[in-house]
C-alpha cells in the first residue's frame, strides 16, 4: 500500500510538473501543490455529485439477451488469486453505528427477501458490461439490523484486503444490493463469492467483492483505490 501510494504521488507530481513546472516531492506525507489542488477538486466533485444524486432516479435495466457473456473478470490481481471463502463457516460481521451487530451467516442472508436486477456495470477505465445479480437490498438490511441511517458512510471490508465505502443516500437507493447470486447461480470466487455489493449507480470499483464486514460510520473510511486518487463518490 505504501509503495502504491508513493507511486501515485510521484505520478501526480510528474503529471503536474509538465504544465505547472512545479516541484516533484516524493514524500507521501508532503503532497505537492498539484496533489493538493487535485484532492480539493475531487472533494468538490464529491459534493457536486451528492447534490446531483436523486434517490428516485433508477439505473437503466436491460433484457436477459443483452447480458454480456462470458462475464468479464476484473480485480487488482489475476483471476487465479481470487480469495476462496469457506461458505459453511462464513459470517458477515457488522460494525459501527449498528444496534444489532450479530454476524450473519449465508443461510440467514438467503432467508431474507431477494431482489434481482439486470444492470450495467461501468468500469472507471471506460468499458461496460451488463450482468444479472440478485440478493438482499442493502437499505432493507441496514434497517433490519438497526443501522443509524443518519450516518454519512457505509464501509465494507473484503476477504482479499480490498475495502471501500459509499454515501448513505446511495446505500439506501433501492437498486443497491448485497448480491449473493450472479447470472442465476451463487457467486463464484472471481466474481465476489459469497457476498458482494452491487450498486449500479456507481462505478465498478465501488462494488466490493467477498465482503466480510459492513460498518456504518461518520468517520470517512476511504477505500483501496480512493486512497490512491480515484474520486470517492464516483457516482454514475
Amino acid at each position: 500500500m505504501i509503495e502504491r501510494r508513493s507511486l501515485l504521488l510521484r505520478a501526480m507530481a510528474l503529471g503536474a510538473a509538465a504544465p505547472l513546472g512545479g516541484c516533484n516531492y516524493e514524500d507521501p506525507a508532503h503532497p505537492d501543490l498539484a496533489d493538493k489542488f487535485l484532492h480539493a477538486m475531487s472533494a468538490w466533485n464529491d459534493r457536486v455529485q451528492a447534490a446531483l444524486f436523486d434517490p428516485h432516479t433508477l439505473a437503466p435495466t436491460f433484457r436477459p439477451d443483452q447480458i454480456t457473456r462470458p462475464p468479464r473478470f476484473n480485480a487488482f490481481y489475476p483471476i487465479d488469486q481470487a480469495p476462496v471463502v469457506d461458505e459453511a463457516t462464513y459470517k458477515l460481521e457488522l460494525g459501527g453505528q449498528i444496534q444489532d451487530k450479530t454476524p450473519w451467516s449465508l443461510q440467514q442472508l438467503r432467508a431474507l427477501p431477494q431482489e434481482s436486477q439486470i444492470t450495467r456495470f461501468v468500469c472507471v477505465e471506460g468499458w461496460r458490461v451488463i450482468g444479472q445479480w440478485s440478493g438482499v437490498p442493502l437499505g432493507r438490511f441496514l434497517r433490519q439490523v438497526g443501522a443509524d441511517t443518519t450516518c454519512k458512510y457505509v464501509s465494507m471490508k473484503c476477504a482479499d484486503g480490498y475495502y471501500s465505502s459509499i454515501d448513505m443516500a446511495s446505500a439506501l437507493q433501492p437498486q443497491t444490493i448485497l448480491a449473493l447470486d450472479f447470472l442465476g447461480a451463487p457467486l463464484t470466487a472471481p466474481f465476489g463469492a459469497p457476498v458482494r455489493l452491487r450498486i449500479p449507480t456507481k462505478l465498478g470499483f465501488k462494488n466490493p467483492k467477498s465482503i466480510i464486514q459492513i460498518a456504518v460510520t461518520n468517520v470517512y473510511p476511504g477505500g483501496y483505490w480512493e486512497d490512491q486518487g480515484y474520486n470517492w463518490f464516483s457516482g454514475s
Partner: protein
Amino acid sequence: MSRRVIHPWPLRLTHWLNAVAMVIMIGSGWQIYNASPLFGFTFPFGLGQWLGAGIAWHLAGMWLLVLNGLIYVVWSLVSGHYKKLFPIRPREVWGDLRSALSLHLKHDKGVYNAVQKLLYAGVLLAGVVAVLSGLSIWKPVQLWFLCDLFGGYFIARYVHFFAMMGICLFILIHLLLVALVPKVLPPMITGGRLP
C-alpha cells in the same frame, strides 16, 4: 489614431484560459482513453502518468473549460461579438478556401474570412458536443436524458472521442495558420489596434 482593439480583453482572456483547459482536457483525456482504447491504438502520452491522476485532472479541468466557455458565450452574446461568426455562406467558404490554399487570401485585421467563420463555429459546436457527451459519460444514470440523447453510454464514449478529434484537428489547422501568418499572434496577446 483609433483606440479600437482587434481582440477585446474578454476574448483574449477566455482564449488563453481555454488554451490551458485544452491542454489539461485533451492530455488527461488521452490518459483515460489509453486505459480502455476504443480503437486499435493508444496515445503516445497523456497527462497524469496513470488513470487515477488522468481522471483527477480531467474532472478538475472540466470546471475551467465549462465556466470559461460560459463566460465566453455570455460575453459574445452581450457584446454582439457572435455576429462576426455569421452568416457562413458556402459560396464564400469555397472561394476563401481556394484562395487560402493558393496562399492568396488577404488577411484583414479584425475581420473573419469565411473559412475562419466556419472553423470557429465548427470548433465551438465540437466543444459543446464534447462537454455534453462528457457529462453523459460521467453521469449516465443521474443525467440519463443527456446520455439517451447520444444513444446511451456506449455510443456517447465514441461521440466524446470524435468531438475531441475534431477539436484536435482545429488546433492543428489553427496553429498552422498562425505559423503561416505570424502577425496575427501579437494582437491575441496585446489586443492590437484596428487601422
